């Protein structure tokens, strides 16, 4: 009797373990497929079309019909909107994180937190649509930009989109600090502001770095919301109120109509490959920041 129960549980255990192994194996398999596919397709620009990687990265001349797919404009566009979003949204998000964990009354934090998490769930096309209908006309009417489509508009939309990520993670970074830090600082006679600025912020710095890096990762990969407001002009922006394009917007704009095997399709794959590399670097940075903390 006992031995049969033991055997049955042994069998269940074996099945369960195998199911789990299969799931893990499948994830690794899917990752490998994506990596291999993008690497093979993404390097055709260089190995099949023999276009120099240096020109791809640094030439602003995106003339795929003429066989010259320089991607510098889109790389610059991606970097600029991301920097804009993180400069505007980063400090703001950390400030709200401080507010939630250190200043807000408990009841208020309990209402605010789910509200902020709700923001993550809003589809990006909705953010883009709001940007197109509210922000673009505002910029058109109040700045030198004649059309209203601009780097700044895309940056503002992105800044709002990365806020929930930055807020949640920076709040976690603060709440996970040992209470003794706060108590010690206050016992020494520091004010609450001094405690936050001199003790909590530096102690939470690696957690805050993670919050910012994941915010950047979100910003780099965002596509639809930006495409609707940035204007998709394949030229360097002449100012923050000037239109430009990013790696993601040119990929989504041209991929459906790009003919297979052309230099245009290869160039778009190379841009996707580049985005993958950027994402990998960001993940490595997160690992590095986390390791520093422990």
């Amino acid at each position, binding site marked *: 009797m006992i031995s049969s129960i033991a055997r049955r549980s042994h069998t269940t255990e074996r099945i369960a373990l195998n199911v789990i192994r299969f799931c893990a194996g499948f994830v690794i398999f899917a990752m490998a497929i994506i990596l291999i596919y993008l690497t093979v397709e993404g390097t055709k620009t260089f190995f099949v079309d023999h276009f120099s990687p240096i020109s791809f990265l640094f030439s602003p001349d995106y003339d795929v019909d003429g066989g010259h797919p320089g991607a510098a404009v889109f790389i610059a566009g991606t970097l600029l909107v991301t920097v804009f979003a993180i400069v505007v949204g980063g400090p703001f998000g950390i400030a709200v994180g401080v507010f939630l964990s250190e200043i807000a009354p408990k009841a208020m934090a309990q209402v605010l937190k789910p509200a902020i998490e709700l923001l993550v769930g809003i589809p990006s096309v909705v953010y883009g649509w709001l940007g197109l209908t509210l922000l673009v006309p505002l910029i058109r009417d109040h700045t030198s930009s004649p059309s209203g489509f601009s780097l700044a508009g895309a940056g503002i939309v992105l800044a709002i989109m990365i806020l929930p990520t930055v807020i949640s993670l920076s709040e976690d970074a603060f709440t996970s600090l040992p209470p003794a830090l706060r108590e010690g600082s206050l016992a020494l006679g520091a004010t609450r502001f001094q405690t936050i600025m001199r003790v909590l912020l530096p102690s939470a710095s690696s957690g805050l770095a993670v919050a910012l890096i994941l915010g950047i990762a979100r910003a780099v990969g965002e596509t639809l919301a930006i495409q609707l407001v940035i204007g998709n*002009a394949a*030229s360097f922006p002449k100012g923050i109120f000037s239109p430009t394009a990013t790696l993601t917007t040119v990929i989504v*704009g041209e991929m459906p*109509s*790009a003919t297979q095997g052309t230099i245009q399709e290869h160039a778009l794959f190379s841009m996707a490959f580049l985005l993958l590399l950027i994402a990998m670097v960001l993940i490595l940075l997160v690992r590095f920041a986390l390791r520093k903390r422990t």
Partner: protein
Amino acid sequence: MQRNAALAALLIGFSLSTSAVLADTSITAAGSTALLPLVKDAAGAYQTANPSVKISVSGGGSGTGINQVAAKAIDIGDSDIQAPAQPELIDNRVAVIGFAVIVNPDLKIKNLTRKQIQDIFAGNVTNWNQVGGPDQKIVVINRTRGSGTRVVFEKTVIAPEKVTEGGLTEDATGTVISVVKSTPGAISYAAFSGTHGQPIVEVSIDGVAPTEANVITGKYPFWSYEHMFTYGPATGEVKKFIDFIASNNDLLTKNSFIRIADMKTSETNR
């Protein structure tokens, strides 16, 4: 719980069987947003006359239409331009469409020379006062690469010059028109099927007005054939639907298209 599941299964089965009864044949068409209004309109009329056929129509641009029909993802690929040579793709010309260069109405510009249009889209001219308009920055709006309208524009109006990449880019005829409407100083181009009757100005090119009459005689240069590509020769309902569009003069005129038979001029490579 079990009863609910059984009920759900029953409902799903029922809805599947009814939809199978109601729609024996389904046709999918996608591509050119210049041709889109006509195909949509025709699909409505055709389905009313043949309730057993279900036609779904979407845009995406000419390049997308050609790509998807070549991949056999859809039945009909709508395009303003010829497809790259591929023996399986059969070209069914259904109509002629004219395109207009369009500007924001506040500019009060009615006519531009071809040279002026070339200069504007090449980025040599950046203020409207250089071409007889008010002191207002020119906002150039291009279509995405892969747009048939853009290819026709480059081939029939801009060549031998080139379009600069500095302009804004929009990915559908409808979007272009709404942006030109709302943006001071805007200039772009779109098919008659989208521009006629809109609160924007369709400018004359070298004094020739963008009208169907001028397209028919060949006086107005900016036009193309509309193609509905099929993978292999069109058969059955797909063929009937394509013929229905090409022969339905009321539907064509209503949407600002021209019957191919009415043309007094012809081009082999459009």
